[in-house]
Structure formats: structure tokens, C-alpha cells
């Protein structure tokens, strides 16, 4: 009985901390919401505020003004067409590729995966340039079409269709990234059950596989949707000649306009854009409301569908043609541009040199500093997003009540706003968070860091949340009854099960932060220049050849990193997991 006493005391201790936890549970909730409010919503509210004030007094004038202009509605209509069109294209391509990679026996899958990423990491000005050349009057498409009978013309990329095409191609990797792991985790037995219920493979795909992959599709679709909505480069490049405005370009026009109303009008339009973004998020909730799991699977990368040799070859060939056109062509265009001495000189040996590379990496000191800055920023942004984003996703998954849903909405907005607008919000907010007090964040690298984290956090949240949706709650319960709490539970059980999804999210955050352009171009400061800023600077100064040289190195570097990762993971699989199939 002597041993009983300390035991009691210990239990009391445990109990007191336990009750403290519960008393403070609401407190934590409030603090958490507050932090999120300050970081994510307040900057945007400061912008929205501008749409309501005129000379210090409240007014709806800007709303009536903007909403009464036919140009606004034309722009909204264009935006909706472009965004839905390109999102659907991205979804179709993304789902198709992820399904093929996850399900069908194909050779060279790993290489394919790398190529799928390319359109996403190649800067969009390069992609558009490559594509416009591809379809131009002197380009290969016209040449090919002239061989065919009939008077066929290459499609005009300077059109809504062109914008949709390029946005779709640039953003389908997002859908791919979110869905491929979900496909791999679908238990085979659920498909077998469908087969014994008499469903053909096709029907099984629509009735079973697609609904089960919905968490990934919805997340990927949402992110692609938001990316299409806030994209400025492609609609500006292709839309300007055709006078097609979408919200992101129209907002930019307002921002660069003069006069006191410039920001206010931009704010009104941003509110419209925000409404569209929120509608997308809510649609995605609606899609996911039925999503449930009752079995957790290890991601299973052995193929489930085997094709006959002929069909397989045919499929592989057509996939590669697609990938070469969408991924390799822009890359080659970029590489070629980076090697010539000036625009317009023929692509001949005597005009080729590494002069641009020499300038970028030897003469100019900025690019290397920028690269190192961007790498560091991207890395730390990724780490913070990884931790915070996964924690938020966990809470969102565990407690799907109004508070976590609100949090998710808050986090979506910074990503949905066009970069310029978001950067302005950051300035409003962080220059003097409390009027009269400048904490010295603005004008340093910290503002970039905060901006990146707030802007890209949603990517990690979606990635991790998608992964959580694939886990049956009993996995965690079993860990807890085995005595694993806190960190151990995460490290040993949750993280390994979540890994592919979390990794996708982190990869996205990293790549996005590494190549970020618009936000940085307003927020950088001396000493904190980023890759995007340097490329943007070259572009604006008319040194496109330098910027392509730098971009080429960047993309090749990313490819090399990806290749190394694949190699290492294969070695890991072989050596550590001793899997040899």
C-alpha cells in the first residue's frame, strides 16, 4: 500500500494538467482563430476596407460604380469561362495521367512523372512564348497542317481558347500531384467487389474509383481552380492582343491606374474575385461531404491493369508525344533562346554561345544571391507550411466544425488573390501592423517569408487534408491504445501513412516559393532578391536572353533534383525496405 501513494499523487498531477487542458481548450481555439485572423484575413480586410471608404467616410460608391460598368460584367464572364474551362481541362488531364500512372502497367513511369511536372515549373512567360511560336504562322503546326488537304489553319492562341489551353496545361500537374497517391491507395477489394457486382472496368471507374479518388480530385481541382483564377501571366500575354480581360488582369489595370480610386476599384474587383474563389471552395466541400474511409491502405504502386503489348506501346507512344509537346517543347524553346546572342538571329552555330550564361552566373552577382535566397526562403517556407499546414489539416479533419471550416476559408483567400493584390495587402498589413508602430518586418526578407507562408499554406493544408481523408480513424486509435501519444503517434503511425500526400503538398509549396514572381516583385528589398525578381528584372529590361538562361538553369536544376530524388528513393526502396519486385 505504500506504493499506492505516489501513484495517487501522480494521477492527481495528470488529472490537473488534464483539466487545465480542457479549460483552456476554448482558449486555444480562440487564440488559434485570432492568429489566423491576423495573418490571413486582416491583410485582406485592409484591402476590402478601401473599397468602402472615400476620403475617410463610408461609401458604397465604388461598388455601384464598378458593378454598373458593363466592362466589369464582361470581365467576370470571361473570367468564369476561362477559369472553368481551364480547370476542367486541368482536371481531365490531371486525372487521366494520375490514373494511368497509378493503375496501368506502363514502362518509364518515373520519367513520365518528371515530365508531367515540367509545365508547372517552367515560367509561364516561357510556356506562352513556346506555344505561340509552336502555333505561329511559321511554326510547326502550320507547317504540318499545310501538308493536309483542306484549308486548315493553326488555331489562334490569342483567344479565350488559347488562354484556357495554356492555363490547363500549366496547371494539370497540380491535379496530378494531388490525385495520384489517392488512386494508389484505393483498396483493390473495393474494385473487386464492384466486379463481382457485374460492373465493367469502365463502370467501376466511374462508380467506384472516381468517387473514392474524390478527395484528391477535389483538392487538386480546387488548387488548379484558384491558380487559374489568380494567374496573371498567361491571360495578360495572350489576352492583351485579343482584348480579352479577366479579373486578374483587370485588377492589375486598376492598380496601376492613377488617382485615389485606383486601389478602391481594385479592391471592389478583388472582392468579386474572392467571392468566386470562395464559391469554388464551398463547391469542393459539397463534393467531399460524403467522402469517408473505412480501410487504410498502403499506397500500392503495382499496376492493376495490364494491357496487351500492342496497346501498351500505342498508349506509351501517345503519352510521350503529349509530354514532349507540352513539356519538352517549352524547355527546348527556352534552352534555344538562352543560347543565342540576340532575338531574331538565326539559330545557327555561329550565333550560339554560352555568353548569356556567362553573364548571368559570372558577371552579374545577383542571380546567384537570388538563387541562394530563394532556396532558403523556399526551404523554410516549406518547413513552416509543412508543420502548420499539416496541423491545420489535422484539426480540420478531426473537428470538422464551423471554426476549422472558417480557418480553411481564411487560408484560401491569400492564394486566390492575384499576386500583386496580395502583395499590396501585405504592405498594408505589415508596414505598420498597429498604426504608428513599424516592427521592421517590412523591407526585410521577413516580409517575403511571411507572404510566402500565408500565400502557400493552403497548398500544404490541401495536400495534408487529402492524405488525412485516406486514413481510417482506427489507425490513430490503435496507436493511442498502444500508448503512443503526441509526437510518437505522428512519427510512427500518422506521418508514414500520410507521407505521399504531405510530400506532394510540401513539394508544391517548395516549387511555388522557389519560382514565385509577382508577390516578390513588390516585396523584395535590397539583399533579399529572389529568383523571380531577377528573372522579372531581366525581362523588363529587355534582356530576355539572360532570363531564359537563368530559367533554363533553374528548370534543369529542378529536374536534376527530381531525378536524384527518384534515384535515391529507388535505392532506399531496395536497400532499406528490401523490396525487389
Amino acid at each position, binding site marked *: 500500500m505504500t506504493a499506492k501513494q505516489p501513484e495517487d499523487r501522480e494521477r492527481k498531477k495528470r488529472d490537473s494538467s488534464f483539466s487545465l487542458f*480542457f479549460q483552456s481548450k476554448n482558449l486555444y481555439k480562440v487564440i488559434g482563430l485570432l492568429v489566423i485572423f491576423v495573418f490571413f484575413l486582416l491583410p485582406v480586410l485592409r484591402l476590402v476596407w478601401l473599397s468602402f471608404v472615400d476620403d475617410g467616410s463610408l461609401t458604397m460608391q465604388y461598388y455601384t460604380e464598378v458593378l454598373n460598368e458593363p466592362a466589369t460584367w464582361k470581365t467576370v464572364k470571361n473570367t468564369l469561362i476561362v477559369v472553368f474551362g481551364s480547370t476542367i481541362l486541368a482536371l481531365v488531364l490531371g486525372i487521366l495521367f494520375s490514373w494511368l500512372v497509378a493503375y496501368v502497367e506502363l514502362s518509364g513511369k518515373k520519367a513520365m512523372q518528371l515530365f508531367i511536372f515540367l509545365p508547372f515549373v517552367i515560367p509561364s512567360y516561357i510556356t506562352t512564348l513556346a506555344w505561340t511560336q509552336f502555333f505561329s504562322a511559321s511554326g510547326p503546326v502550320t507547317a504540318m497542317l499545310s501538308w493536309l488537304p483542306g484549308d486548315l489553319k493553326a488555331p489562334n492562341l490569342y483567344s479565350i481558347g488559347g488562354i484556357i489551353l495554356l492555363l490547363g496545361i500549366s496547371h494539370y500537374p497540380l491535379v496530378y500531384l494531388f490525385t495520384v497517391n489517392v488512386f494508389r491507395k484505393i483498396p483493390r477489394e473495393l474494385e473487386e467487389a464492384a466486379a463481382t457486382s457485374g460492373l465493367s472496368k469502365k463502370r467501376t471507374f466511374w462508380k467506384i474509383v472516381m468517387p473514392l479518388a474524390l478527395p484528391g480530385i477535389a483538392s487538386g481541382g480546387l488548387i488548379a481552380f484558384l491558380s487559374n483564377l489568380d494567374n496573371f501571366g498567361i491571360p495578360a500575354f495572350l489576352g492583351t492582343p485579343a482584348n480579352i480581360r479577366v479579373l486578374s488582369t483587370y485588377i492589375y489595370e486598376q492598380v496601376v491606374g492613377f488617382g485615389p480610386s485606383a486601389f478602391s476599384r481594385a479592391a471592389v474587383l478583388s472582392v468579386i474575385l474572392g467571392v468566386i474563389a470562395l464559391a469554388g471552395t464551398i463547391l469542393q466541400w459539397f463534393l467531399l461531404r460524403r467522402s469517408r474511409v473505412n480501410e487504410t*491502405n498502403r499506397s500500392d504502386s503495382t499496376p492493376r491493369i495490364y494491357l496487351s503489348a500492342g496497346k501498351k506501346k500505342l498508349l506509351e507512344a501517345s503519352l510521350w508525344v503529349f509530354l514532349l509537346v507540352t513539356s519538352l517543347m517549352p524547355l527546348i524553346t527556352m534552352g534555344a533562346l538562352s543560347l543565342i546572342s540576340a532575338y531574331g538571329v538565326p539559330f545557327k552555330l555561329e550565333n550560339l554561345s554560352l555568353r548569356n550564361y556567362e553573364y548571368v552566373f559570372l558577371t552579374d552577382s545577383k542571380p546567384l544571391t537570388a538563387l541562394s535566397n530563394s532556396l532558403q526562403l523556399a526551404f523554410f517556407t516549406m518547413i513552416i507550411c509543412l508543420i502548420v499546414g499539416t496541423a491545420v489539416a489535422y484539426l480540420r479533419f478531426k473537428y470538422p466544425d464551423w471554426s476549422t471550416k472558417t480557418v480553411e476559408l481564411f487560408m484560401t483567400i491569400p492564394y486566390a488573390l492575384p499576386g500583386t493584390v496580395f502583395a499590396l495587402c501585405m504592405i498594408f498589413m505589415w508596414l505598420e501592423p498597429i498604426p504608428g508602430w513599424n516592427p521592421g518586418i517590412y523591407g526585410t526578407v521577413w516580409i517575403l517569408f511571411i507572404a510566402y507562408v500565408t500565400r502557400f499554406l493552403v497548398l500544404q493544408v490541401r495536400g495534408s487534408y487529402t492524405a488525412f481523408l485516406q486514413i481510417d*480513424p482506427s489507425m490513430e486509435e*490503435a*496507436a493511442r491504445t*498502444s*500508448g*503512443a501519444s503526441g509526437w510518437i503517434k505522428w512519427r510512427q*503511425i500518422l506521418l508514414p501513412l500520410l507521407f505521399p500526400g504531405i510530400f506532394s503538398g510540401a513539394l508544391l509549396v517548395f516549387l511555388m516559393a522557389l519560382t514565385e514572381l509577382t508577390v516578390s516583385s513588390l516585396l523584395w528589398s535590397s539583399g533579399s532578391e529572389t529568383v523571380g525578381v531577377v528573372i522579372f528584372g531581366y525581362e523588363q529590361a529587355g534582356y530576355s536572353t539572360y532570363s531564359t538562361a537563368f530559367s533554363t538553369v533553374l528548370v534543369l536544376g529542378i529536374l536534376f533534383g527530381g531525378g536524384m530524388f527518384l534515384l535515391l528513393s529507388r535505392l532506399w526502396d531496395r536497400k532499406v525496405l528490401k523490396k525487389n519486385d
Partner: protein
Amino acid sequence: MIKVNNVSKKYGSFTALHSIDLEIGEGEFIAVLGPSGCGKTTLLKLLAGFMGPTDGTIEMDNLVLASKKRVLPPEKRNIGMVFQSFALWPHMTVAEHVKFPLNYHPNKIKENKKEMQERMNEVLKLVGLDALAERYPSELSGGQKQRVALARAIAPLPNLLLMDEPLSALDVELRMEMRKEIQKLHRETKASIVFVTHDQGEALAIADKIVVMNKGRIEQIAPPEVLYTRPETEFVATFVGKCNLVKGQWRNEQFVPAIDSKNTWPDLGVTAGFKENGIYPVRPEQFQLMSPESAGLQGVVSFVQYQGHEIHYTVEVEEATWTIHESVFSKRFETGDFVSISLKNSLVQKEILIST
């Protein structure tokens, strides 16, 4: 000592548990028995702390473990659990499943690597999976998976062991062996065990005390023999003892079945409760079947099940359906045969069976 006080649990608008009261003594072995969907798993999850009750409290040694507002998380309660759905971690091998609680469970004695390895081997051998230690769950059969779940739960010798139908996927022989192992474990560690099962034979064989549940309510709590011989409700009589509840009238210690007032049955020891309700509970083996010419209640055989040493007949008697077990050596009947049913007159049974 765990006390469940007036606990209710709702899933949305559906009430899965209605004001449950239960006490689990230190080192007690309790079986929770009940039909599919009666709330057994729900009760176990509340005991584990995966969710909180909608109402009521769960206390341990006068300390509130769980109430409407707060729940002590499972990792802080020295428990082990076998999940009905196994809940194996797809990324861990069988060995890793067992090692896991050995590393982290609050109950583990500071063991060194070697001791741990030994304990792991011991547990794996116990459940007969020593040869499959390096397999992943996806490479196991259903029964093997269940044994991994069992091994994981018992490895750290927790104070409270919660088992949700831990043997349902095993064959009888293995099941018997596992039961013995669980009982041995219970004797050796003095852990409290709550063992959920839908098999009344298993519950009777294994537990100190049986909790019979039905539709979210507790019907009776009693030691096996009491439960079997003195069921308090009709449900317990039929579910645990497989009794046929024959309706009729009790007149002077004689029973007149409603369907055939010419027959009278002697009292072989029926509890007062049933007598008041005009019911005669008859176990399947207390009946005997004869050709329809013989005296007795008239019925039609609707179903015959061969069981090796016995034949189980289902007989339709007017509105009611009775189950009757006959030896393989008695006269056989087929589905559709008309039969006459009467009570076997074995006096021996009177003393213990269904006595007050």
C-alpha cells in the same frame, strides 16, 4: 475499479446506448454479450476513451475519466485494445506491430532491447505468428490479421484489456487455444478484461461476469452459471440459453401450453417471473421429436441442420418457431415432416436448471 454511471451515447439522432450502468472490478474478466448492433463496440470505445459519452460519466477509482465535457485520452489510460476491424497499420510488419506498444505503452517496464525482443518472440509464438513476423498486413489472411491485433494488444500487459470480438475470425481449435492464453494472461497479470463477443458459448466459457446487452440497454449482469440457469428476462433466456419461450397458463404448478390445452407439462423448475408471465422456457435439448401419431404438440419441421453429434431442428408450431436439438441416433426427420413434440421427462435437470 471502473464505474460506468448512467452513460448514454448518441450518434446524431440515433441512441446507441441508453443509460448504461456497469462496474468493472480490479482484475475482473467481463464478457459483453449481445446481438449484432446492440452497442457493444460503442461501449468499448467509450471505455477506451476514443469518444465521450453523450451523458453520464465513467470513473476510475473515483476519478472522472470521461464525461460529457472531458475525456482522458486513451494513451494516458494504461489500456490495450483489440479492434473489431483489426486496425492494423499497413506500413508495419507483424513484428513491428508487436514491438510498437512494447516501446511506448505506459505500462512497459523499463526493458532493454534484448528483453523486448524476447517478449516480442514470446507473444508472436503465443498467437502462432512467429513464422510470419516479417509480413505486412496485406500479406496476411483474415485470421492472421486478427491474431496480430490480439498480439499487439496483449504484448505490453496493460491494466485494462479491451477486446472487441478478438477471436471471431479464428477456427474453433485456435480459438480455444487463444481463449486459454487470454485466461492465462488474466490470471498472471491480474488485468481487468472486457471481452466483447457475440458468441454466448465463448462468453460463458471465459468470463467471471457476463453483461448481456440488447438494443443499447443492459439486460442482465451476472456470472455465467447464474446467467445461464437463472435468466431474468426473456431476451437473456433466448439469447444465452437458446430457450424456446412457450406461452400458456400455469395452473397448480402445471403448465398448459396455449396452443394445445389438452397437454400439461410438469414444472421442471421455472422462475417465478416467467410463471407470472405465463411462459415456460424450454431449452432445445429438453424437447423431443416423435412421429406425428404420438401424443404431443403438432408441428412441421422447417429446417434441419446436421451438427455431427447432434441434429438441430427448427419446427413451426402454430405461430411460434422452436429450436429442438436431437441426438444423431434418434429418429431423423426431414424438412416438411410433420412431428409431434413433447417434453423430455428428465428429473435430474430439475435441481439446478432454471431454479429460483
